[in-house]
């Protein structure tokens, strides 16, 4: 569950003013909006990577506005991928589990699971520095979901993926959501992805978030997610 209330962020000349949004558990929401609308800024603020000037952020009914990023337990896929360059792909995937001191066995199994779902098993021992764009993106996704966070923020997770992989990654993300009941906020520019992944679509434009009428309908109709939502009435 993510709730953002009247969030204000200043980033140089750019500012987000009084942005509010709300995600139920298990809900998958797509955030769209033109380049430079502040989508990444918003996600980073939710992660705790941006100083916010006003407003509050609640995750699972806990006010985390002043918490450090680590306390928020968010699975975050940055737009710029930002893999850990000094670790192998395996260690990148395992990072969130290692810092939680997850037992060796569980950890290895979980890494294998994620790698299989994202089709990066063959890359596990490689260094991230020479991965192709699409490979790197998948590792970033795997790193964010391996520790099974309850809140997942994905900043253009499908950018640079080929068609076949895109399908598989969508399936993997959906499976992850089913398994953990996480609330997922995606950023994408691709209406197709929005249609496919979203229970709801939000638009960020001139600093304001609003429902996208086009997608609310199709998203609600085109998926079997509504019932599940009902099971978790906030």
């Amino acid at each position, binding site marked *: 569950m993510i709730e953002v209330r009247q969030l204000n962020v200043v980033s140089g000349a750019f500012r987000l003013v009084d942005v509010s949004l709300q995600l139920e558990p298990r809900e998958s929401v797509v955030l769209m909006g033109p380049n430079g609308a502040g989508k990444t800024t918003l996600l980073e603020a939710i*992660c*705790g*990577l941006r*100083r916010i000037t006003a407003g509050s952020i609640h995750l699972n009914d806990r006010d985390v506005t002043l918490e*450090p*990023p*680590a306390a*928020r*337990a*968010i*699975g*975050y896929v*940055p737009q*710029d991928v*930002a*893999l*850990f*360059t*000094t*670790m192998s792909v395996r260690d990148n995937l395992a*990072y*969130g589990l290692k*810092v*939680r001191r997850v037992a060796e066995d569980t950890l290895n199994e979980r890494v294998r699971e994620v790698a299989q779902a994202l089709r990066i098993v063959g890359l596990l021992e490689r260094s991230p520095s020479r991965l192709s764009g699409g490979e790197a993106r998948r590792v970033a996704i795997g*790193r*964010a979901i391996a*520790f099974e966070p309850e809140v997942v923020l994905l900043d253009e997770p499908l950018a640079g993926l080929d068609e076949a992989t895109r399908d598989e990654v969508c399936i993997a993300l959906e499976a992850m959501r089913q398994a953990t009941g996480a609330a997922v906020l995606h950023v994408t520019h691709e209406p197709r992805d929005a249609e496919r992944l979203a229970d709801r679509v939000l638009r960020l434009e001139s600093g304001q978030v609003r429902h996208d009428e086009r997608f609310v309908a199709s998203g609600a109709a085109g998926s079997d997610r509504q019932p599940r939502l009902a099971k978790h009435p906030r």
Partner: protein
Amino acid sequence: MPVDAPAPPHRSRDRSFLLAMAILGGAYVVLIALMVVADLASTNVASLSAAIRSPEIRYATALSLASATASAALSVVVATPIAYLLSRGQEGRESTRPRARAAAYAAVDALLDVPIVLPPLVVGVSLLVLFRHAPFSWISEHVVYEIPAVVLAQFVVACALAVRTLRATFEQIGVRQEQVALTLGASRATAFWTVMLPQARPGLVAAATVSWARSIGEFGPVLVFASATRMRTEVLPTSVYLELQAGNLEGALAVSVLMIALAAAVLVLTRVLGQSRLAV
């Protein structure tokens, strides 16, 4: 307006650029090599073997190696947090009191150059002066003119050099990977150990190298603060000094050559070991 430069100039320009660089840099490398050759030519095998057989020189060698290693380790350990805090602190420019903060940083920064700027003997004198006063005077008896003084004298200068090197390194490294580590649940300490430090590897190696090399070559502060007592606080630079003072240039250069050989062996070995670990 398609601009299409003819091909050959490019390649030859690139060559002459690299050549110019190689000449400029090579001149210095050759100068150093010639200095070493000059030293070698001015000593002789007899002096060298005399140096190696002398128990004083052996003791000084052992003490030099041990103290320089201790001092370099200490330098890196202490310089790392300083350099990290300085480099990361300055990024938080949206501070509430930017002026005061900037002034504090400038002051600390200037202070960190003091051990490099101070003439060597004065570093030793300053330490002596310091150890006349509490709380240092409480342990003065176990430090001044004793082995801990050797390490401390070396450390004071070496650490300043390590800070400079590491700070440039940390400033070069972006915060992005650290940030992602934080979102993944790492505490700042964990992010620092697992993400930041491995990225800073070349800088850490350079800092360790430079502080070790400086420590082993350190003379002035050691002479004043630890004294030059044979078989107790005599390190190799002290041996060289004493040989020079006794008019034994061959002996002094023999010990210097020994130092160069030792240092080269240690540094190359460390590098090779470090590299092979890296190559995995």
